[in-house]
Structure formats: structure tokens, C-alpha cells
């Protein structure tokens, strides 16, 4: 019985402990004020021009990005995203949304403004915890 209680206690405290670790991206809602605003092509250009300078300017900050939607979908982890056109080929700003319902009424080619937490360049430029402005 004591061993069972011990295992249960360990699991209980591990769950509480791990759930209390900081999520990398801060929660963002419609009232969150972005640190700066930029359009998707400028953001992409800044990253292709000098990734280190762009990281210094955008990474780890809540930013507002305006642009045209190239794609809407779910990634392999079933996280909903849209991509905003960064250049004329494949360069995109990939914006992940915790709330899928906010993407239902969007269409490819539509112009949108997104507020999200920039985590830098990883194939695309990634914005987490996004909301549509």
C-alpha cells in the first residue's frame, strides 16, 4: 500500500511540476500589444538578408505581421497554421494558432494581420500562439 501511494505521489508531483514549466511562447489574445509591426515580405527579407540581425530584432518578441495567405492547414502534430507569403517562391511566414476555429473563415489569397510570438527561422519563419487581428 505504501509503495502504491509513493508511486502515485511521484506521478502526481511530476505532473504538477512539468505542467508548471514555462511554455516557450507567451499566451496572446486580441488585446495583446505587439512590440512591432511588419509586413510578411519585409520580415522574410530581413531574415534572408541577415538571420542574426533579424533574430535580434524579432525573435522572442510578440510581433504583428500583415500579409497574404499562401496556405492553410494542419502540420504533422495536428497544429493549425496559415502561411503568409514571404517571397515569390517558397519562403513563408508560418503562423500557428492554438484556436483552430479562428481559421475557419479564412481563404488562400486573403490579406490578414496576425499577432504572434516569433521563434525565428526554421525552414519558414515561425510565429507561435497567433491570433488574427
Amino acid at each position: 500500500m505504501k509503495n502504491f501511494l509513493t508511486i502515485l505521489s511521484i506521478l502526481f508531483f511530476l505532473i504538477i511540476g512539468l505542467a508548471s514549466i514555462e511554455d516557450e511562447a507567451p499566451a496572446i489574445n486580441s488585446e495583446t500589444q505587439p512590440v512591432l509591426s511588419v509586413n510578411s515580405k519585409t520580415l522574410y527579407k530581413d531574415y534572408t538578408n541577415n538571420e542574426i540581425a533579424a533574430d535580434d530584432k524579432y525573435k522572442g518578441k510578440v510581433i504583428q505581421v500583415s500579409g497574404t495567405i499562401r496556405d492553410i492547414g494542419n502540420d504533422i502534430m495536428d497544429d493549425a497554421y496559415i502561411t503568409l507569403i514571404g517571397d515569390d517562391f517558397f519562403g513563408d511566414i508560418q503562423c500557428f494558432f492554438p484556436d483552430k476555429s479562428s481559421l475557419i473563415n479564412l481563404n488562400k489569397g486573403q490579406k490578414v494581420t496576425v499577432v504572434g510570438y516569433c521563434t525565428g527561422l526554421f525552414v519558414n519563419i515561425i510565429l507561435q500562439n497567433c491570433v488574427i487581428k
Partner: protein
Amino acid sequence: MKKKNINKINSLWWVPLLVGIFIYVFLRPDNLIYNDLFSSPIKIKINTNSKVVGFLIYSLPNGLWSMSFSQLIFHIYKIRTLKIIILSSIMLFVGIIIELLQYQSFMNGTFDINDIFSYIMSYLIVLFIQK
């Protein structure tokens, strides 16, 4: 301390846990993993520029969590063998390992030496109570 009193204090293992949860829910910003599931509509705004207040809000809950676990283990077994002392220190080591992983950027979150201080102090307090 008398054994009866020690057992009484250990039986209150849930108190530090509740205090820690209160701090997390009402005083911490919503950027923690559990906030994906739950977020308190009520937030108490406190200026965290002071080092003491910063410690109370950002580091103390870690120590309280570890302290609560240690007390619970002593409460379950009601003895002080080496095995139980080691068992009661599991969350202390889990907490320190998490901090070190954060320091090495293997894990989300911010490494803070105050967190480690909080873990160690709270565990020492629990051990002191068991004397």
C-alpha cells in the same frame, strides 16, 4: 521536536502545495504549460521589480512543490531511514535537473539560480523538521 508534532506537520503536506498553486494561478503570467488547459480569469497585479517579490513569485513555488512532496513521503512512511530520506528528495533532484536542462537550453523555461536555492532550502527545512 516530538514525533507527534513532526507527524502533524508532515500531515499538512498539502499546505505548501496549495500556497504554490495559489501563486501560480493568481500571480504568475499565463505562459506556463498548464495554461493551455486552464487560465484564471482573476490575476493579482504585483510589481515584480523587487528581488524579494520576484523570488516569492517565481522561485518560492518551486521550493514549496518540492517541500510538499518531501513532507508527503515522510507522512506516508512515518520513519526516517536513509531510504526514506533519499525517496523524499526525488523532487529536489527532478527540480534541479530541470533547471540544468533549462540552463543548457534543452528545455523550455528560464534557468534561475534562485530556483535551485529555493529547492535546496525547502528540502533542508523539511529535513530539519524531521530531526
